């Protein structure tokens, strides 16, 4: 092949090899090799992207289309016939009290977790920023990030043990202080907050890391200029740092909103099973129960499409907002 390319690019007259090639009669084998080389060079980019396109097509985009199809049918996974029911799977949701409770739970999770996961790490990053050169900082980073690298189900199990009504350390501590023990996970009012606590504990470190990296990238000249002009700490943040880290801020915001429904699933499944009375359930958990507990495939597909629509709209809104209001440094 190396020979072939020399032949092909033999424009340079001083390459003795090339001039000889011109003088000689056309070597069929070389032409063939050159053509083959060119063919493979043309084909290589397509071969490089083909596997990922195939995988993504089969396991991401095809399911999306197939979900739309399935959402119009009544089917239970095993039955040989799928019965066409039109929009009944969607309209049925309107009357399902369990779906209403799941939606309410979804709302509570979003309203509690999005601010907590977007703003708490930002505050923490600003707190860590002045002491970023201290030796302890590396330890802080490793420690605060550590829950991120363990599984959500493990995290949930650890907290299940802490929240345990009889032997759990939390109840033991509040009992020592003279309060009555609480059945954290079987009380309809506290169960959802237990899941929220686990989620905050689990995810705070990741966003913290992103914010710290963003703060690191703010050019020192800007900070220097602002401080020469006598800017206060708050002004420095509001007028210099925050505008410059807004891309990260919105990245964190969008990814949090998208992932929040999904990520609490493990904690719900391990800790509360959606209960008591669906009070800690959310829309993803509802989908799981519909699709994989009572095998209402049509209804589960309908819910999955609602989730997709919601995610798509949110993403679109966020990107529009980012385009208009975010300053890129």
């Amino acid at each position, binding site marked *: *092949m190396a020979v072939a*390319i*020399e032949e092909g690019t033999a424009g340079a007259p001083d390459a003795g090899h090339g001039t000889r090639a011109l003088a000689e009669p056309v070597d069929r084998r070389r032409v063939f090799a050159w053509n083959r080389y060119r063919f*493979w060079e*043309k084909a*290589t980019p397509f071969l*490089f*992207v083909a*596997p990922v*396109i195939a*995988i*993504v097509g089969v396991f*991401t*985009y095809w*399911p*999306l289309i197939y979900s739309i199809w399935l959402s119009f049918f009544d089917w239970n996974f095993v039955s040989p016939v799928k019965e066409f029911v039109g929009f009944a799977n969607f309209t049925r949701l309107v009357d399902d009290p369990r779906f209403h409770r799941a939606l309410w739970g979804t709302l509570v999770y979003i309203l509690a977790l999005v601010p907590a996961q977007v703003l708490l790490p930002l505050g923490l990053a600003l*707190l860590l920023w*002045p*002491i970023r050169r201290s030796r302890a900082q590396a*330890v*802080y980073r*490793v*420690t*605060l990030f*550590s*829950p991120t690298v*363990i*599984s*959500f*189900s*493990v995290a*949930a199990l650890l907290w*299940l*043990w802490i929240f345990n009504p009889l*032997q759990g*350390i939390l109840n*033991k501590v509040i009992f020592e202080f003279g309060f009555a023990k609480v059945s954290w996970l079987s009380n309809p009012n506290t169960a959802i907050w237990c899941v929220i606590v686990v989620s905050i504990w689990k995810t705070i470190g990741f966003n913290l*890391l*992103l914010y710290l*990296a963003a703060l690191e*990238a703010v050019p*020192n000249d800007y900070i220097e200029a602002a401080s020469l002009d006598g800017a206060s700490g708050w002004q*420095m943040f509001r007028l210099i740092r925050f505008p410059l*880290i807004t891309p*990260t801020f919105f*990245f964190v915001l969008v990814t949090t909103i998208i992932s929040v429904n*999904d990520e609490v*699933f*493990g904690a719900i*499944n*391990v800790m509360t*099973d959606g209960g008591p009375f669906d009070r800690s359930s959310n829309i*993803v958990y509802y*989908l799981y129960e519909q*699709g994989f507990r009572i095998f209402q*495939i049509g209804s*589960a597909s309908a819910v*999955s499409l609602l*989730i997709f629509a919601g*995610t798509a709209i949110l993403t679109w809104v966020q990107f529009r907002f980012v385009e208009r209001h975010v300053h890129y440094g």
Partner: protein
Amino acid sequence: MASVARNATQPGAVGAARWPRRIGRGAAHTVVILLCLVTLFPMLWMLSTSFKIPTEVFTRDIQILPRTPTLLNFPEAFQYFPVANWFWNSLLIAVVTTLGKLAISIPAAFAFARLRFRGNNLCFAAVLGTMIVPAVVTYVPNYILVSKANWINTNWGVIVPSLASCAFYIFLIRQYIRTLPQEILDAAKIDGASTWKTLWHIVLPNIRPALAVVTILSFLHSWNQYTWPLLVLDNMKSKTLAVGMQVFASNSESAQLWGPMMATAVLATVPPLLLYVFAQKQIISTFVTSGMKG
């Protein structure tokens, strides 16, 4: 640079002005240390419980450290449930998924970064587009696909569909390849290297840091993934450690196996935690250089 920054943020940083600053720093340290303790507590509590004998686990008073440390919880966990199988499944799935993701991501990332061909942008958009498709949407159809392929209760049923979530890794590698000077690629081409050889001999050795990060992130992700394996792995022996947690949890009230339970949680926690502690610098630096700079 550090000293410049310090002087810059604190123009009057002489004499008296230093004191409020020190107090502020002390306060920051205190708050962060407290937060670190809160963060570490559940894991330390897990570790402590996993070495406790049953009477200490179920004692009335608060007992932070085990008085008579024991290792018996580990073999006991293996007795109740096939924890060894779970560990092996977790490892196999994480390793194979990671290798598979690397194998499909690297050539694609190179093509998206440096090669010109029809449909380049369209393909890249299709790959990035998967990031806004929530995984939950794909569960039901993929479950049907996997059950048609007879992959329920097998590692393949977990691995193959997971390969589709590689968009972020492709993006990371692509960004890294774009920072390589075009000259070295041109030089390879002039020397007669085919695209494939350029990728193998020129690009690959130069993107090792990005590959290290992708490997670590992908391993962690596969080791920890929960929902999809929960659906596919129904059989007790075929489960992973992450999914096995749910088995312990659903038996927690009836069996009261808190010691063995925490021992299994330790097994599930140690590999990812070790990996992170050794590689955290690389992870952080890649976040900074990969275009998520701010």
